[in-house]
């Protein structure tokens, strides 16, 4: 089996290297990917149409907003799937395999004090990353992951039970659903006002300002929705994985 695997891998690698001879040089400005008309349109027209300097956020949340909505749904589905696979309730909990029994640990003083100082700063930084996604690298995903990681740090420093007092299980799933509703809500609001789905230009009726501001503020709203969902699902996946589904005791 291993020999067959090695043979397959070597043949595939050789074929790919043969195909790679035709590639343009790395970094070539006239390569087909770099001189593509659509990319050049994105580079030159983003600020004029949306008044957002960060081109990547503008393409992600405005020009390709439909893809981002379904990506958020994929993350949500993954969180729900993990709960569906692993979650067991009180009467069904089997004792752990004898190899895996984890000794109950006392909270360590140094780790706990350091984390208590660090976690508010991490959360503030996460909010900054979400809000400043228009002008610097960042956006909804990055801020959401950092915020979720701060809750994971809380669960690692103290107990999983303690962290679940701050973020109980059903509230977290509600938050994830609200995030997707915010995103789809922007789309449906555009439909109700007469435009296409996720056409931010027609939202000038609700959002004060001209069309460029409507694009910019809708992008911020949509990124907030994405951040909610990603935060909730990151912590939910961690609590499911680290407690093997019973949510009583983490690693």
């Amino acid at each position: 089996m291993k020999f067959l695997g090695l043979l397959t891998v070597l043949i595939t690698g050789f074929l790919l290297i043969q195909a790679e001879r035709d590639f343009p040089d790395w970094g070539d400005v006239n390569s087909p990917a770099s001189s593509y008309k659509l990319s050049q349109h994105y580079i030159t027209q983003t600020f004029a149409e949306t008044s957002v300097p960060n081109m990547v956020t503008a393409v992600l949340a405005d020009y390709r907003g439909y893809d981002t909505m379904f990506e958020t749904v994929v993350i949500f589905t993954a969180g729900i799937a993990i709960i569906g696979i692993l979650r067991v309730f009180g009467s069904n909990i089997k004792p752990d395999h004898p190899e895996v029994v984890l000794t109950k640990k006392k909270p360590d003083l140094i780790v706990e004090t350091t984390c208590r100082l660090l976690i508010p700063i991490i959360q503030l930084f996460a909010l900054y990353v979400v809000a400043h996604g228009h002008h610097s690298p960042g956006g909804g995903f990055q801020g959401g992951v950092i915020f979720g990681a701060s809750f994971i740090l809380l669960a690692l420093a103290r107990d999983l039970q303690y962290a679940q007092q701050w973020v109980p299980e059903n509230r977290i799933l509600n938050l994830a659903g609200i995030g997707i509703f915010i995103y789809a809500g922007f789309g449906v609001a555009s439909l109700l006002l007469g435009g296409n789905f996720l056409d931010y230009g027609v939202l000038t009726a609700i959002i004060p300002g001209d069309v460029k501001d409507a694009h910019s503020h809708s992008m911020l709203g949509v990124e907030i929705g994405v951040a909610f969902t990603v935060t909730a699902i990151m912590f939910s996946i961690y609590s499911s994985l680290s407690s093997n589904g019973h949510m009583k005791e983490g690693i």
Partner: protein
Amino acid sequence: MVAIEALADKFNYWVYIVIMMIGLYAMVSKNNLIKKLIGMSVFQTAIILFYVSIGYKDEATIPILYHDQVHGAHHAEEGDHSDEGAHHDETHAMEAIAKEATHHGNDHAVDADHAEVDEHEADHVIDAHVMHNESDHAFEAGHGGLDIDPNQFENPLVHVLMLTAIVVGVATLGVGLAITQKLYGEFGTIEEHEIIEQLRTGND
């Protein structure tokens, strides 16, 4: 040294092929389930490396506009309004002349040159008008006011696609790990050959 620089032209692509094959071999041949999942992650990040290498341009900067480009253009926009109006009228006239010249098919050298130059500018104005008309927002100044060279910035389309790929990759890794834990609870082992052995003897 020159040979090494010539090597550096394509080195990125070779390395991505090697890493991708390492990941593929791990997914196919390793017995441990967690090693298979690590191989899957290595494979996914190698693909993302490939795409980001495609989107790279020499001596280009990150795809975020400069502060002075953004705010300097605001003043230029108001100044340009009156200039643009005159420019449009002038090129309208030249467009008409170019169309007449090509319709009549004049063969005189001077007229042909004049018609060529006018046609070129007329094409440029036609392009501008097409982009102008296809979005009926009130931002005329944007087209003429902000002078951005596409070769100065990296390709943002590639970065957007890869953001989605990374996040979907971590979601898939989470689901794979959950299935691994469930298999461990069921069979007591995470080695593939032992699980197959148990299934075979369990079914007999």
